């Protein structure tokens, strides 16, 4: 594990500083990575890790600082400069063309040609086959990307970088969209690549990943480096404290209990629905959530969870099946009617459905109650009442903003999510639907939200939690259901579920198809 540390540094970033208007993204950051070293760049969302890597990849130019590759100072003004120096990047959101084959995607931009302008596809495919064997990243060069699972697509991205002879590989949140098994596979790949001499930097906020696979760790916070060490020299708790800058709040783990009452609040039966492209997204889904329980839905992104939430909240129409809240059918109800039935929704994409960036915090807090007393008398709005209400909620939910008039878009992700929660919790609710509620949030906001969910459950609310973060599901749920390809594969009581069993279900093991 320490083999990387003995070689001289292949990549050196010194004193990197980058300003954006009003914000210092990187402040005198130093980073050194040796050949064959797996270096983890760890930090909360907003710590500046992605900015640093974007600078390395030539997407941004630093205001100050130098970068040296292989002992030579380099200027990286654009990604092609970075690529010319052997720097390759695998982004969090893949940049692949779904309808093209693996070969076509890999050679895109650096096409091998013969006889002038003609593509040498066969040659390229052969090269790629050899490359994939060499790095144990077996893949069929003729496969079409849209048919490949996410783990395989990531391999294509890595091969793309290797094809361009990258010897410094940057990965941005590589495990964000992988099942536990796929995560292990990609770590094996990275270790093998490191053994062959590639320097690897991977950005993450997941502590477990870091301790598992990294040779060295650099922790960033608020644009600065706050620590560099090897995994042997530190613990999860210490890393968490460094990331947060003090005592990390204790993660919320609720004691799972069988649902307090047998009263079913949400009953979904045989639901079928299509996604935006017309493919079947929900294939005969049935579930029930009881009062006083948390039902967690685990599953890799893209298996129908988004569409399920949309149908349940009235944003998508179902083709067949029924949804009932407290026994009353709401299958095709509008969002307004759902809300009047006591359904609260914390949306997956808060910028799309949750808040209006342009509007002030105060206006956002009354986004679905602006027309009711006391916020309006008939058609005329009473802005004083809205502002007073906002001040109250900001205090109660610890929404940090300069004033109630601040535009919501300028709040941090955590505060925006608190805003959504504050708004939804301001009225009595029977059913709470939370979709990826802590995505992109810092530890403090995450803990706060988890506490709110458990409290609601204890008050007798039914909670439906959909998340791709297995830790979140496992620590909060009373029962866990796993979605795969639009179906619920299995529902287990939480005490019986293990990471392995859930992980297998997430990958589709145990499904009839």
């Amino acid at each position, binding site marked *: 594990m320490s083999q990387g540390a003995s070689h001289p540094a292949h990549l050196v970033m010194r004193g990197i500083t980058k300003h954006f208007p009003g914000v210092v993204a990187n402040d005198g950051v130093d980073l050194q990575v040796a050949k064959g070293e797996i270096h983890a760049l760890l930090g909360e969302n907003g710590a500046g890790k992605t900015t640093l890597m974007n600078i390395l990849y030539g997407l941004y130019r630093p205001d100050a600082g130098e970068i040296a590759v292989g002992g030579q100072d380099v200027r990286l003004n654009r990604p092609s400069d970075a690529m010319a120096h052997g720097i390759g990047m695998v982004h969090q959101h893949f940049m692949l063309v779904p309808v093209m084959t693996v070969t076509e995607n890999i050679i895109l931009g650096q096409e091998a040609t013969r006889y002038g302008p003609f593509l040498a596809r066969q040659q390229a495919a052969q090269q790629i086959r050899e490359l994939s064997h060499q790095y144990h990243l077996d893949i069929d060069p003729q496969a079409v990307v849209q048919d490949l699972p996410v783990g395989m697509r990531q391999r294509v991205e890595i091969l793309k970088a290797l094809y361009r002879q990258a010897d410094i590989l940057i990965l941005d949140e590589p495990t964000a969209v992988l099942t536990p098994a796929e995560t292990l596979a990609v770590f094996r790949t990275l270790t093998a690549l490191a053994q062959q001499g590639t320097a690897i930097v991977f950005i993450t906020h997941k502590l477990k990943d870091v301790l598992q696979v990294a040779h060295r760790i650099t922790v960033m916070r608020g644009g600065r480096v706050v620590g560099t060490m090897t995994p042997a020299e530190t613990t999860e708790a210490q890393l968490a404290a460094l990331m947060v800058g003090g005592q990390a709040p204790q993660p919320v783990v609720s004691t799972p209990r069988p649902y307090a009452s047998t009263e079913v609040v949400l009953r979904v039966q045989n639901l079928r629905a299509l996604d935006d492209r017309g493919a079947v997204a929900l294939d005969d889904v049935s579930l029930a959530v009881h009062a006083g329980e948390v039902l967690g839905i685990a599953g890799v992104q893209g298996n129908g969870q988004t569409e399920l939430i949309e149908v349940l909240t009235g944003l998508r129409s179902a083709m067949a099946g029924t949804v009932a809240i407290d026994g009353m059918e709401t299958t095709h109800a509008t969002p307004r009617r759902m809300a009047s039935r006591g359904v609260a929704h914390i949306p997956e994409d808060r910028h799309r459905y949750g808040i209006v960036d342009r509007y002030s915090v105060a206006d956002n807090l009354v986004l679905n109650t602006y027309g009711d007393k006391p916020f309006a008398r008939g058609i005329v*709005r009473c802005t004083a009442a809205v502002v007073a209400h906002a001040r109250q909620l900001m205090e109660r939910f610890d929404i940090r903003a300069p004033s109630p008039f601040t535009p919501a878009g300028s709040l941090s992700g955590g505060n925006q999510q608190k805003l959504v929660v504050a708004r939804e919790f301001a009225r009595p609710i029977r059913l709470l639907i939370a979709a990826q509620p802590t995505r992109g949030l810092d530890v403090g906001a995450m803990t706060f939200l988890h506490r709110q969910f458990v409290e609601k459950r204890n008050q007798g609310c039914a909670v439906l939690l959909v998340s791709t973060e297995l830790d979140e599901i496992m620590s909060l749920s009373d029962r866990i259901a796993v979605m795969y390809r639009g179906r619920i594969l299995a529902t287990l009581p939480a005490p019986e579920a293990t990471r392995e069993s859930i992980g297998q279900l997430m990958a589709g093991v145990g499904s009839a198809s």
Partner: protein
Amino acid sequence: MVLRGGIGRDMRRRDWTGVLVLPCALLTALLLGAVLIWASGASVFEAYRGLFEGMCGSRRSLVETCVAAIPYMLTGLSVALGFHTGLFNIGAEGQFYMGALGAAVVGYAVVGVSAWIHLPLALLAAALCGAAWGAIPGWLKARFGAHEVINTIMLNYVAVKLVDYLVKQVLRDPSASLDRTPYVQATALLPLLLGADYRLHAGLFVALAAVGLVAWLRFKTTLGFEMGTVGANPNAARYAGMRVGGLIVLTMTLAGALAGLAGAGEVLGRNHTLPAAFSSGYGFDAIGVALLAKSHPIGIVPAAFLWGGLRHGAGLMQVHSGVSIDLVYIIQALVLACLAADQIVRGLYRLKPRGFIYVKL
């Protein structure tokens, strides 16, 4: 920064450099215009002297600027209201024509009623005709998602040609030497405000009342809040339970009514008839006015005066210096370009924005 019907006082207080962008844009446009004048061989001094005299140099020109501003105010409001809801009302021109038609027909055809009834009736007819013309693309958008830019532009042509046909063939005043409708009855005319020597008519009050109404709607009512939400984030609006389709239709209908009233102003206040050669272009200029005012209803007033003033001053500029009035169109276009790409102005005059800017790290 556009305030969309919300309580964003804090924003305004912080980013005061935005206020300077407009004067700087004007200055830039005038400088570039000066270059063009000089290149054409005319005297820059004479040209701009004529322009400013025509805008506000004498009592008469000030009044004429007011008269010119009235239709710009109403059509500007029409476009601005659309923008507030995220809609591009390029159809203000057609709505203007339909409103003019409605006003002209009710104006000459209805006889024997007192002015207290006739004038409001004519105005109402204009508003309704314009509203209908706006409702059509509004409904098409709400129901089918058909983009209002295309539909409003098409309907502009329909309106212009329809009016042209009706005036020339059906409604033509047989006693007239040129193609126009019969003169509007005296009972339907908008009264003159400063006596017969000046052309300033009561349409000014209609326009100012409209400004007040739109401002109230936008900032004080739940309806304005809903419209603004649809404009800012239609998904969030739908999710919050707002009836997005209905709001779109309502917005386009109101916008049409406003542009229709502008048409009424021209017929009942200025021309007293609807001539076939009724080329206005107000509907298109309205887009510029709305942009100048950043879609703010109160801002429409000075924007309309500036626009109207420039247009009126253009005539005097031509007389004084021989520079074609087209130059004013160029200057207006340059002002708009500078405003749209305000980074250019900010760069030129070193106006760094202060205030809230957030960056996703």
